[in-house]
């Protein structure tokens, strides 16, 4: 296997990890099961490992020099999705009074589902996206539409929570939790934008 093919393979594996991370995140939060959340942390470490491998391959000469920054930036953006998923598990575990989350669980579930859908679109079409700019364009339109809906749901959750009485630290963790849930969709959109830039340069 050529170095470039290995990098694409690592990227594809990272994208698949984002799907697994979001899937475990959903189960962990909705079932309040910390085993799933620990799995997200393990996946995040696996993502770091793959990002390092991509870095080494690029350092050793994979891809033409002008392409290397965009390829590595792609790896970093995908890794950030995994880091954010990990961050969500931590903030969730820090929340002492989970009754507040119960109040908005219906909308939290919507965001968790939409994040899974976004990662699934990326994961199932990643190599196709790299080879076919039209397919990528179609994918990024759908990703933008879903991201907009996630943004709407996040604002709706914050609006519903605005009058809740919680202690300072719980309030902070709940806010970070909701913000990070939404951040995953932003990052998927950024990955699709970076992919478009990369594909244009190929």
């Amino acid at each position, binding site marked *: 296997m050529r170095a470039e093919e290995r990098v694409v393979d690592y990227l594809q594996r990272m994208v698949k990890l984002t799907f697994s991370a979001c899937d475990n995140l959903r189960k962990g939060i909705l079932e309040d099961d910390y085993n799933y959340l620990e799995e997200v942390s393990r996946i995040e470490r696996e993502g770091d490992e793959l990002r390092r491998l991509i870095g080494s391959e690029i350092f050793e000469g994979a891809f033409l020099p002008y392409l290397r920054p965009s390829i590595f930036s792609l790896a970093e953006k995908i890794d950030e999705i995994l880091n954010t998923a990990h961050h969500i598990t931590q903030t969730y575990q820090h929340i002492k009074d989970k009754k507040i989350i119960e109040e908005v669980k*219906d*909308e939290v579930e*919507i965001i968790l589902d939409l994040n899974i*859908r976004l990662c*699934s*679109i990326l994961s*199932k*079409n990643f190599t196709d996206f790299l080879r076919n700019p039209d397919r990528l364009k*179609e*994918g990024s*339109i*759908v990703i933008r*539409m*879903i991201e907009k*809906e996630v943004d*709407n*749901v996040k*604002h*709706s959750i914050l*609006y519903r929570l605005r009058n809740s009485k919680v202690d300072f630290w719980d309030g902070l963790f709940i806010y970070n939790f909701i913000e990070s849930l939404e951040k995953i969709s932003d990052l998927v959109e950024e990955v699709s934008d970076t992919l478009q830039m990369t594909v244009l340069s190929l």
Partner: protein
Amino acid sequence: MEVAEVMNRRVEYIDPEASVLEAIEKIVNRRIRSVVVKPRDERDTYGVITVRDIVYKCLSKNLDPRKIKVEEICSKPLINVDKNASVEHVLSLMEKFNIARVFVKEGEKIVGVVSLMDIMAAYLTRRLL
């Protein structure tokens, strides 16, 4: 494709006696396009108030949204389908009644709403999954 796969589960309710301004507040704050109007009594049915109703039946006529009640301008009855209905059936209803959203029921409970935008997103997503 079943409507349950496509529907938006965010449904907001408002009392029929509430003012149009309260409906506007809900629509803006919750970032939605329509609000379900609760029945006045057991003999009454659900209704819906949309941005279209607010603009055409209240604001463009220079009526005061604080003084107009939701029940005065809402549309009734609510066009709805069962959760297991097909998207094609929803599309035919939208065309027949010239509406952009159809509500989804499970038994007597409203569990979601489907708009043309949701259907477009679902068709495009299906091409990718």
